[in-house]
Each structure stands twice: as C-alpha cells, then as structure tokens.
C-alpha cells in the first residue's frame, strides 16, 4: 500500500485522447439533457473539441513516450497521423451538418459517435501492444457500425449496418485468433518484446506467420483491401452520405497507419513473408478497384471501388518496405483524403426536388446548370485519375517511385496499368457532366457555407499542390522517419 501516490503515472501524452473522450461524453450528457436546444450547438462544440484536440496533439511534446504500461506510444508518426485524422473528421463534420438536417437525422448521437470513433482511431495509431490495438480498433468499429445504420428509417442503411457489423465481427474474430496465435508462440503482446523475439527466433515458427496472416486479414477488412472488401460497396451505398464520407476518408487512414506500425515495428524481421501478403492484397485491390467500378451506376458505389483501388496503391508503398514507401503512403493518403472531401461535397450537392439522388447519370448537364460545381468535380476526378499537374498525380508518383526503389518493378507497372483502367470511370463522370444532356436538373444552391468552404479548400489543394509540394512532403517525411528509424 506504500505506493499510493495520487497520480504516479504519466498521462500527459494521452491528453488529446482523454480530452476528446471526455468531450464526447460531455456532449452526450448535454445532448440528452437539453434535447432540441443542444442539437444546434453540438456540431459546433464537436468541431471546437476536435480543433482543441488538434492543438493538443501538435503542442504536447511526446518524446516517443510509452505510457499506460507499454500500451500507448506517442511519437512523431502517430502525431502526424492523428492530425490527419482530426482534419478528416472535421471535414466530415463540416460536410455532414447540412446533410443531416436535410435527411432529418440530425441527432446529437451522430456527433458523439463520430468523436468516439475518432478517439478509437487516435488510440489505434498510438497502440504498441496487440491488446490495446484490438481495444482501440473495436472502439472505432463499434461506433462505425452504429453510424452505418444511423438512418433508422432507411432499410438500406439498416442493411448496411448489419452487413458491416456481421462481417466486421468475422474480421475481428480472425484478428483475435491471429493475435492469440502470435501470443501463443512468442509469449508476448508488446511490440517491443515481439520485435526482440522475432530477432531471436529464426526461422520464425510457422504458427506465428499464420497468426500474422489472420491479423492482416482482419486489418485488410478494415482497410477494405480486396478480397476483404466485399462489404465496402454495399455499406458505402446504404449508409447516409455523411457517414460514407467519414468511411472513405478517415478509418482507412487509421487502419493503414496501424498496419504500417505493426509491419514495421514487431514484424520488421518478417519483411519477406508479409511482403507477399501485402503484394497480394495490393494487386487484388487494384484489380477490383479498377474493374469493379466500371459497371457501377451509383456514384457512392463508384467511390467505394475508387477507395479500394486507392488502398491498393497505398499498399504498394507499404510493400516497398522503406522509409520512402511510408512517406509515399502518408502523402498519398493525405492527398486522397483531400480529394475525397471535395468529392463528397459535390455528392451532397446532388439533390433533386429536395431528395438526394446518387446515380452518375444525375450529373448530366451539370456543366451548364452549375458550372463551378462541374469544374470542381472535374478537377477532382482528373486528380483521382492521377493526371498531372493535380495533386493526385504526385501521390501516385511517389508510390511508384518507392516501388521502383524497392525493385518491385512488376508491381509498379501493374499499378500504372490499373490506374489507366481506373482513369476510364473517373473520366466518364467528367464526360457525363460536360457532354450529356440533362433530363432533369439538379437543385441549385444546395450546399451550405461549410460545405462550400471544404469543396473550395479541396479543389485549391488539388490545384496548387504543385506549387509547393515540399510543404507537405517535409512533414510526411518526418513522420515516416519516426516509424522507420535508420534501418
């Protein structure tokens, strides 16, 4: 009993997460106590809380501190990814507010769930223990399951939620099984200890690799990497657009960051083994992403396939297993997030007679009725397709450079071919907007101020990235160096 000091453990590196979690719970209480009055202010409170969390993340000095008994590590890598997560979530909230009102689902639980998911994601990128990793992942996933089915009136949303939940449970099970295998054969869940054991055990037992495969399969589900992507199109289509925007931007980034930490910290000595899995996932994702989208007529499904394809490119960077590769992945995801935010702003502008429409053909004639929107989406689509001089090109360029640097020539060539095929459906949207005659016009002036702002930022980013790419590459480089210390 002698050790009972008041606080004999360091909580400072946890400050952002603790703050955000407390805010989420506080909003829950406020929301449930004040009802309708709170409904209008909570979105702004949530944005403010995220902003403050962002400030905390950037201000709290981490010094690679490992706290919570080896469960949680705050370093430059996690700091950068957390900032991206917060930025993505803020963009989602900015996009969502008006949309939720329009769809009559503007309940405060949405914001609380989004914040809790953010807390989960922030813990994910800082997790350095398989146990805390799993806990964080589940916190995130459970929030997202509910969000997917948030529109209770819509059978499609409910279907999406159930599918996501059931398959997510399966994936979690795979992951847990993988973790238990790894634990069984190494006797540890801690990343540091795992690294040490891997170094000692050469060759690594078969079962550990099996465990890794299960673990990666579970993560691939979260990433929506093919062939674990099956839920993605259905959920993207069924979930409310605001939630789809969140799905497309943020959780993938967190899962990818988590994946890279697992692969480059405890399993750094198994590169030859996991590289095969990652290449398999990358190739499958690129195939599915490129070809799957061709037959789609719903724009949200199309974006789902597009996100699968982009995860495929990102996995090429992971497979490169180099600092440049990590750097490229982070940059690619940053650019992808920025492009996606703008794209969803346009998707939310697709309403006719006060109801949201989602078919690609509904965009016909947009260049005449709303030229600014059409040009914005056109630029974003060109960027998604990786056409220079837009930002999307540089993300892909860095990825392919990293692949070539790692002598993965076939994979790089495959990536280029896949992006050529993918260009078809991006350009099809441009074609529909600019060359097809509209049968029915879309509503005008649908977007709110925050939505316009996000669209403008997104397009500006895509357009002007070329002017000063180093501003972004420098920070991704720092983050990458933190994860890949001079090996």
């Amino acid at each position, binding site marked *: *009993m002698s*050790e*009972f*000091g*008041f*606080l*004999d*453990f360091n909580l400072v590196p946890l400050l952002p997460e603790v703050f955000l979690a407390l805010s989420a*719970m506080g909003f*829950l*209480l406020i929301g*449930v*106590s004040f009802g309708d009055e709170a409904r209008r202010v909570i979105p702004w409170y949530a944005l403010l809380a995220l902003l403050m969390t962002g400030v905390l993340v950037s201000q709290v000095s981490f010094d690679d501190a490992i706290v919570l*008994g080896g469960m949680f590590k705050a370093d430059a890598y996690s700091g950068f990814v957390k900032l991206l997560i917060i930025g993505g979530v803020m963009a989602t909230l900015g996009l969502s507010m008006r949309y939720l009102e329009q769809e009559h689902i503007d309940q405060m639980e949405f914001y609380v769930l989004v914040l809790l998911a953010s807390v989960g994601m922030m813990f994910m990128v800082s997790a350095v223990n398989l146990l805390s990793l799993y806990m964080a992942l589940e916190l995130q996933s459970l929030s997202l399951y509910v969000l997917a089915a948030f529109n209770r009136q819509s059978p499609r949303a409910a279907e999406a939620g159930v599918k996501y939940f059931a398959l997510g449970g399966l994936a979690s099970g795979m992951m847990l099984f993988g973790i238990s295998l790894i634990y*069984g*054969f*190494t*006797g540890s869940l801690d990343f540091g200890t795992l690294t040490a054991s891997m170094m000692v*055990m050469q060759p690594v*037992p078969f079962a550990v690799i099996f465990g890794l495969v299960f673990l990666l399969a579970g993560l691939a589900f979260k990433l929506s990497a093919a062939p674990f992507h099956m839920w993605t199109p259905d959920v993207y289509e069924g979930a409310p657009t605001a939630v789809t925007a969140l799905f497309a931007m943020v959780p993938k980034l967190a899962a990818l960051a988590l994946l890279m930490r697992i692969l480059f910290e405890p399993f750094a000595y198994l590169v030859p083994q996991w590289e095969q899995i990652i290449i398999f996932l990358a190739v499958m994702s690129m195939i599915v992403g490129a070809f799957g989208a061709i037959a789609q007529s719903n724009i949200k499904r199309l974006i789902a396939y597009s996100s699968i394809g982009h995860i495929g490119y990102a996995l090429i960077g992971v497979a490169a297993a180099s600092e440049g590769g990590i750097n490229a992945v982070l940059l690619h995801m940053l650019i992808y997030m920025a492009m996606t935010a703008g794209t969803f702003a346009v998707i939310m502008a697709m309403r006719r007679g006060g109801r949201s429409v989602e078919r690609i053909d509904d965009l016909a004639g947009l260049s005449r009725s709303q030229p600014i929107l059409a040009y914005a989406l056109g630029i974003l689509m060109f960027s998604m397709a990786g056409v220079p001089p837009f930002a999307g090109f540089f993300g892909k360029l860095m990825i392919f450079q990293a692949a070539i640097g790692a002598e993965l020539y076939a994979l790089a060539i495959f990536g280029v071919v896949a992006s050529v095929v993918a260009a078809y459906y991006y350009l099809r949207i441009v074609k529909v907007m600019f060359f097809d005659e509209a049968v029915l016009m879309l509503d005008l002036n649908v977007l709110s101020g925050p939505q316009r702002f996000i669209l403008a930022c997104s397009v500006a980013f895509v357009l002007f990235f070329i002017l000063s790419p180093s501003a972004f590459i420098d920070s991704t480089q720092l983050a990458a160096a933190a994860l890949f210390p001079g090996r």
Partner: protein
Amino acid sequence: MFNETILIEYLPILIFIVLALGISGAAVIGSLLVAKQKPDPDKNAAYECGFDAFSDTRGKFDVRFYLVTLLFIIFDLEIAFLFPWAISLKDIGMFGFWSMMAFLGVLTVGFIYEWKKGALDWE
C-alpha cells in the same frame, strides 16, 4: 524452446477440452446406442401443461426485453470486473484504482444517457 514452455501452461485447458468433448460425446452417442428409439409426432409437439398448444412456440417477444437484458449485462460485466480488481488492488496501485474509476465513470455516463432517453421506462 521457450515458446513450448509457455504452451505447456495451457496443457490443462487442452485436457479439459478433450475431457468435455469426450463426456458430452459419450452422453449423446450413448443414448443413441443404448436407449430405445420410438418416434412419435406427439413427441415433437410443444408441451404446455397437458392441454393443446395455443400458438406457435416461436412466439414474438417484446423487443424491450432484449434492451433491458443488454443494459443488465453491462452492469453484470461491471460486477465481474470489480471482483478481480478488488482482490488485486494492492498490487496494481494507484493506476489500477483510477482505471476502474474511469471505467465506472464511463458506465455512469452511459447509465445517465439511457435513463434520460427513457430506455428504462417500460411504457
């Protein structure tokens, strides 16, 4: 190798699983082999205190039963959590104490929420 020494600790569990499978399997297979088999449609009918069944056995439950059950399970788990915590509090120190406080705090927030939402009212 050291991983085998760890695995050896799980040997009792393995033995337990085998025993459980063996006994339950023996019961099922034993009854199948030893007992007399006389199939009858009445044997499959729902049993309701001697008179004919009023309705289908797969009757509809009010969804509120599930809700209450779920809410109950959370607190059930809380108790299950508190026991080991109370026993080992001496060893886990202040960190352990505050961890449980945080956990209870989160549960309390959830409880307030469900109360205010009216999830506990039957009508």
